[in-house]
């Protein structure tokens, strides 16, 4: 017998519960209004199934069918994608800016400025090859120039090893996040009870972990029939499946110039070199800066040192020096130009010249103190196009690679700006759906409060009706 005062009391009681639940969910939303990754929840009220009462079909009040999560999978995907793009752009711009800093036009210690001083000292020397002061000055400027080359090389290779160290950190972060996703997969599996009752907060945390992972690398996420996430990473590498996850780490013994990034399988028995497979995310930006731009600069510096040094040596060797060296030729000016090694790291003025500046060649013929033919040839050699297939001088070559780096940095900055806007846009789109609005929650609170008051009114009314019925007997 579904109707009667008892039944109305039940409906009122359930409604009381519904409104209490409404307030509870509202409270949960408000307390998470600023929680990153949180999606707002809302109780979905549904009327209970009606029953037949005589010839009538009567409603049975309302129930909370489920607590829904305001969430859009496609927007979530878009955010992940833009986070990856932004992560890459940010790391790329950051490291290129560091790299270009070593070639800043404000610096007076750049190779370029030192080259100028060296050329100047060389001309002074050619004007007065007999003068010991000019020779000493030439040696000093040559030393500062080679030091500038050494220092720049050291800066660039230090930047590369810095990036490698940062990569190790990012690998740890990624491994951590993968573990977290697998763990959350496990907890979600344990807690979920069909479609109606889902552990939303855990799902939010899993989305957040994947979003954090997107900052670091490119991932694709698939959902299986148990609502568990399978994550694939760079080059289709399987990262998470069900409750299992793989790890990233740096391999220092691969025989490459720089440590490589490897990914383990779930059993941690095999590793796979994925260094060149990152398409976006922080790691790919760092690798591109390290292996492409910094390495290019480093190679260029080595080429610069080798070619400039040996072309200078070639002419210098023809000449005769002063005093003890006025009858001998065949000496090098620079040493440490071995192309097998890092010439930019090794280049220096020859030890013989360091000991005695008279060993610097100036003349074409022996025993001619005022002969400056070779010195003039050396001046001219500074303007010889020996780089880029005979089209660029030493300074021209330097200018070119610095300008190339500058252009790359400029476009990296622009890309970053664009990525920031696009990412912010995607996040706003997501927030529009999932974010908590206090105004809305205030209204909800009021709504459920009124509902609560009204529901108590039903109960008191029924109570009075009971009383009336009981009073009939007296």
């Amino acid at each position, binding site marked *: 017998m579904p109707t009667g005062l008892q039944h109305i009391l039940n409906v009122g009681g359930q409604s009381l519960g519904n409104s209490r639940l409404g307030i509870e969910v509202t409270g949960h939303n408000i307390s998470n*209004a*600023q929680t*990153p990754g949180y999606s*707002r929840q809302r109780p979905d009220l549904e009327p209970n199934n009606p029953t037949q009462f005589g010839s009538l079909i009567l409603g049975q009040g309302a129930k909370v069918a489920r607590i829904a999560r305001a969430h859009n999978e496609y927007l979530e995907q878009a955010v992940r994608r833009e986070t990856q793009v932004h992560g890459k752009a940010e790391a790329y711009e950051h490291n*290129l*800016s560091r790299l*270009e*800093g070593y070639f*800043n*036009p*404000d610096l007076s210690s750049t190779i*370029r*400025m030192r*080259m*100028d*001083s060296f*050329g*100047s000292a060389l*001309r*002074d020397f*050619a*004007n*007065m090859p*007999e*003068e010991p002061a000019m020779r000493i000055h030439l040696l000093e400027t040559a030393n500062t120039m080679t030091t500038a080359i050494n220092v720049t090389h050291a800066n660039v290779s230090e930047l590369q090893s810095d990036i490698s160290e940062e990569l190790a950190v990012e690998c740890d972060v990624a491994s951590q996040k993968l573990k977290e996703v697998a763990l959350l997969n496990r907890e979600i599996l344990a807690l979920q009870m069909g479609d109606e009752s889902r552990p939303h907060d855990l799902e939010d945390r899993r989305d957040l972990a994947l979003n954090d992972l997107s900052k670091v690398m490119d991932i694709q996420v698939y959902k299986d029939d148990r609502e568990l996430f399978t994550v694939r990473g760079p080059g289709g590498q399987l990262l998470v499946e069900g409750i299992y996850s793989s790890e990233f780490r740096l391999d220092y013994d691969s025989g490459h110039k720089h440590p490589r990034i490897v990914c383990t399988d779930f059993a941690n028995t095999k590793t796979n070199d994925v260094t060149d497979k990152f398409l976006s995310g922080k790691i790919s930006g760092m690798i591109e800066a390290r292996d492409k731009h910094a390495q290019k600069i480093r190679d260029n510096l080595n080429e610069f040192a080798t070619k400039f040094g040996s072309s200078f040596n070639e002419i210098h060797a023809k000449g005769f020096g002063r005093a003890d060296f006025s009858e001998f030729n065949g000496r090098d000016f620079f040493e440490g130009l071995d192309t097998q090694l890092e010439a930019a790291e090794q280049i220096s003025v020859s030890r013989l010249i360091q000991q005695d500046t008279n060993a610097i060649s100036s003349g074409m*013929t022996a025993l*001619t*103190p*005022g*002969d*400056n*033919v070779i010195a*003039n040839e050396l*001046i001219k050699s500074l303007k010889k196009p020996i780089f880029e297939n005979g089209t660029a001088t030493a*300074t021209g070559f330097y*200018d*070119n690679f*610095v*300008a190339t*780096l*500058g*252009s790359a*940095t*400029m476009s*990296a*900055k622009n890309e970053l700006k664009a990525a920031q806007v696009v990412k*912010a846009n995607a*996040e*706003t789109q997501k*927030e*529009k*759906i999932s*974010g*908590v*609005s*206090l*105004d*809305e929650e*205030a209204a909800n609170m*009021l709504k459920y409060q009124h509902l609560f008051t009204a529901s108590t009114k039903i109960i008191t009314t029924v109570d009075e009706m009971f009383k009336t019925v009981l009073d009939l007997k007296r």
Partner: protein
Amino acid sequence: MRVSERMKFDATENRVNQSRAFALDTQDQASSGRKLRSVSDDPSGTVRVYRNRTKLENINQFRRTNDYVEGFLGKTEDSLRSISESMMRAKELAVQQSNGVWDAGSRKTVSHEVQQLLDQVVQLGNSTYGDRFVFGGFQTSTPPVAGDGHYAGDDGLIYVQLDEDTFRPINIPGRRIFEISVRDHGSNGKDVPLLKIVQDFRKSLESNDVEGIFRSSSRLDGALTQLAEMTASLGARRAAVRDAAERLDNHEEFVLKDNVNIEAADPVRTALDMKRAETALSYTLHASAKVLGPSLMEFLK
């Protein structure tokens, strides 16, 4: 459109950051006075600045070189002129003494003056500028003219870079002066050195050899012509050096201007930008304070 709490705060944060970044950038520009602060600000401009700086460094250098060359050429010219004058005096004496009115005694007296002229020319031939013998060719550390008139230098031409593309010789190797090529029937087809001419002249005076004096006179003539030519060519060289110096000044002005255009921030524009940044920032902060605060919560009682 739904506006969530995080949207409100994130948007505010972004806007304030943007305004601050702009303000910081203009502030940096204003305090440094530079708009070119990294290569990526203007990659091709940076390269031009690099090149201009090289040019400026070189211009300073060339200017120093110019001063030196001017001194060196001046000294050479002075010495050469004095040598010419000595030779002129010898020539005068030769013309005078070839006249029959003079006797052996007077010629002997004159020979002493000629000896003095000879010594003077040797001394002038060993002129130095700084520590360098100007007439020695590449042999700049040893006296090029021996007491007997023998030339000990070589034929080295010292080239010096006057500007980016010009190398010019600054010296006259002494051989051209002291082994002057005068040929006549008494020289057996060989070049007679300058000092040999004077020495022969002196000997002719001592031995009262009128014919010898006469020949010396004509040889001195030839030598003088050549010395005059050389002096003239030195003058031309000095003019060229002065031209080069003038070109350097013009070029420097141009290069400096170009660098200022690329590197330096426009003060008026920077000042306007600063004002704009200030306004933008204060409006953003004001607006944020107004928008962030109120929510429906506060109005429901």
